């Protein structure tokens, strides 16, 4: 703990383009937040299990049977760039 955030690197992981201004501002704000969350270092959690769920539940599976789904036309119409029955995206392989 106690590290400074490399905001540009984290933003790259999060797929968000940041302005130079945002890098400075978010860097300071997130650094301040980390100062506060570092208080968790005071807790002795060596023998404590991580929370997986807060109320009892178990894996849920349903029978693999076909059933009605959302209307394909309505769903495809929400895509910013649609081409027939497809969603169109920019090229994904860059030379």
């Amino acid at each position, binding site marked *: *703990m106690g590290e400074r955030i490399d905001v540009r690197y*984290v933003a790259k992981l*999060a797929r968000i*383009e940041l302005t130079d201004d945002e890098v400075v501002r978010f860097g300071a704000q997130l650094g301040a937040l980390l100062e506060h969350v570092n208080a*968790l*270092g*005071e807790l002795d*959690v060596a023998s404590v299990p991580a929370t997986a769920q*807060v109320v009892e539940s178990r894996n849920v599976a349903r029978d693999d049977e076909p059933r009605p789904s959302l209307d394909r036309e309505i769903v495809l119409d929400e895509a910013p760039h649609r081409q027939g029955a497809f969603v169109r995206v920019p090229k994904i392989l860059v030379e």
Partner: protein
Amino acid sequence: MSELVERGAAEIARDVNAKRVSAREIADAALARADAVDERVGAYLRVLYDIARETATRVDERVARGEKLPLAGVPFAVKDNMCLNGTRTTCASRILERWTAPYTATAVQRMLDAGCVPIGKSNLDEFAMGSSCENSALGVTRNPYDLGRVPGGSSGGSAAAVAAREAAIGMGSDTGGSIREPAAFCNLVGLKPTYGRVSRYGLIAFASSLDQIGPLARSVEDAALAYDAMAGHDPMDSTSIASEVEPTATALRNDLRGLRIGIVREFPLDPLGAEMKSAYEQAYRDLEALGASLVEVCLPTAEYGLATYYLIAPAECSANLARFDGVRYGSNVDAGDVGTMYERTRAAGFGPEVKRRILIGTYALSSGYYDAYYVRAQKARTLVARDFAKAFTSCDLIASPATSCPPFALGAKSDPYSMYLMDYYTIPMSLAGVPALSVPCGWAREGGRTLPLGLQLVAPHFAEALLLGAAHAYEGATKHAGTYAPSLVAASGVES
């Protein structure tokens, strides 16, 4: 103002079922009220005129056929992170500004099945991230008790709508306090049910291990009726609890005899200032006067709740919001390659608070930091949950303040961390998944205005009937909510 808009859900349902008034008349009165005041309040992002009138007409037809509906004709506000088929659902975000939901959220559908009539989609902090509604990218919502102040958040639009009599019930979602804090700020009852008790299908996810839908209302009975309608198992939400829901509206009580109510040692009242301190001391005495015995309980990890939450919630948010990539739905910024398209779409589509949380969450989950931050927070969460389990061996309910201050002025909290502190009293309950509510408990005077305060009551998992029952007794004995009506007037002489 029509007298009809003053009516609560229980009274409306009784009268609509008895055909003394039609759902259509109630809906028209709520729409007219929204027309008259929402320009000032800003509770709704969209008023659903046609849908409200059509739905009300269908409710009247169902009643005419002899159906008895638990919420017949009750006008309600739907937080705009919940889907209603065929209508826009924006999360108050640019990235979903033009998105139309292709299905209806289960909890919303259950309210419709019970006879409710949707009046509008209500404002929120973008993707429910915030405590004042000021993080909305699409509009400003003001507190009906003082238009210069915030309504709380993130369910601030639903709270303002109910307080301003533009709806009888508001649907909210609570991740770290987003129902309870706006309820406290707007003089309402707001319930965050046990995690998993209300289906989250059709609620656009923020932090999936914490998000829970619940009602805001002007009385405990109305909140109970709404909770009874929306709660229950849903095969479309794999975290939804299968066990039967204990009805709450039939379990309302008028005293607290035999109940032990825990007062939290780690939540001293002195830091709240003299006026709030005396309000909460009076509230605790009122609980005692109703027959409860007060006992001291310890939540030693509660002070770490905020730090725990601000790692876990952003971590989950960074994963959930990865789906907004400009490909299948939402806004899009064109670019020559797909990576740049993602980055520019998300840069333009998300506001600053959402970006901050995605960044902190991405960092906490990134290689090299995962164990130090995310795993440690999940372990701290276990300790918080154990605190509650232990406390509930010596008490039946816990009482505490809902917020650390009365509603604050718009723009007063510019530093993100000072806003995060708003959730101090509500976050530990969210981490533990226990049900909790805020009920009006008095008033604070600030800047010449009288501002509402909320008492938080907390119960063990699945004890909503006990929780609402006790709140009903407290409400009946104190009647704080009715002391002052919302003024719908701005402070400092500004006419709005």
